[in-house]
């Protein structure tokens, strides 16, 4: 590739020269003073810069077209010799294939239709507002309430769903503490769930739920689903995410909600690329 490119460097020089001439400058003739020479070199530099800006635009357009045709950020990054993350940073919001969770409802519905057993990466479709870090809670009750309020704010549940989540813990105990430091509080669809929702609270100080094996808890993933099947793909994706201890560590290190979301996004990307 590089060799073929250097073969064409003459053509590229001709192009730069033509752009430089458009500025009204001309290459210095023998006998011209150093001033003329300098003006031409600056015109050349300016032409290179304009060409680069034009190429950047063409790259962005090409990336968008490739994404529309099904390319992932990983493939876009590889094409320009950078990482997936760098490609994402360079061209945010490309229409890459919809295998992430920003539209959890459509994904969940189609996942249900396709296969309830198939796991799909969907965690990062969690509503951006539904993540909070550094939340202080005095006890498990406040922790569950905080998670429930985010679901309510995302309009995934009615207010009464939060009370139902608390009742569930009271009645069934801390069984929803599914791994060391991690709980997935929820209630039933008929307790006021409006759609599939998932929120994440990272507590500033862990609280006890009464779990013999997994206390204390500082990661609270509250969820809801209006249909007892719609959330299956989401929960399985969540379980896989939680199985990787480096993800838990990264969430606990996150200083902002955006950083916590980034951890989830990264995990989704890796699933998507694999």
């Amino acid at each position: 590739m590089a060799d073929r490119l250097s073969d064409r460097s003459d053509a590229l020089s001709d192009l730069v020269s033509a752009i430089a001439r458009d500025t009204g400058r001309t290459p210095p003739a023998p006998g011209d003073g150093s001033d003329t020479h300098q003006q031409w070199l600056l015109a050349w530099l300016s032409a290179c810069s304009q060409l680069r800006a034009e190429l950047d635009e063409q790259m962005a357009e090409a990336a968008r077209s490739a994404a529309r045709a099904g390319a992932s950020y990983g493939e876009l990054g590889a094409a320009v010799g950078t990482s997936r993350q760098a490609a994402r940073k360079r061209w945010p919001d490309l229409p890459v294939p919809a295998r992430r969770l920003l539209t959890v409802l459509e994904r969940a519905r189609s996942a249900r239709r396709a296969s309830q057993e198939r796991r799909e990466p969907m965690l990062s479709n969690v509503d951006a507002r539904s993540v909070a870090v550094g939340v202080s809670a005095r006890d498990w009750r406040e922790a569950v309430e905080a998670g429930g309020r985010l679901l309510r704010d995302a309009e995934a549940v009615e207010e009464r769903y939060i009370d139902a989540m608390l009742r569930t813990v009271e009645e069934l105990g801390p069984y929803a503490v599914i791994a060391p430091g991690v709980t997935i509080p929820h209630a039933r669809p008929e307790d006021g769930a409006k759609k599939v929702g998932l929120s994440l609270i990272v507590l500033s100080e862990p609280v006890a739920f009464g779990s013999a094996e997994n206390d204390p808890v500082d990661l609270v993933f509250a969820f809801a689903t209006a249909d007892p099947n719609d959330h299956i793909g989401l929960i399985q994706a969540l379980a896989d995410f939680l199985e990787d201890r480096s993800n838990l560590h990264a969430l606990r290190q996150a200083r902002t909600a955006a950083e916590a979301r980034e951890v989830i996004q990264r995990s989704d990307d890796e699933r998507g690329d694999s």
Partner: protein
Amino acid sequence: MLKIFAVCGMGLGTSVILKSRLKEALDSHGVEYSLDVTDASTANGQEADLIFTSDELASKIRNENAKTVIISNFTNRAEIREKTDAALAELNG
């Protein structure tokens, strides 16, 4: 045919995770089984060989025929696989 129950609170969260991971562990043994997600009282009233559940719900299991297996970390495939292996070995032995 082994009859297996995964006992959970509401059949929405823990059970969804447990069912898919148990399925993986059981399939690797090539045994014939049925695997259903239920609550404790349903599992207590039925014939069963194995009941998987959490520490918190284990006290609600009253099924004398079945062996109860307690899972503490539901996300951990290794734990679920090891405990499944051990339970199946015990049933066969």
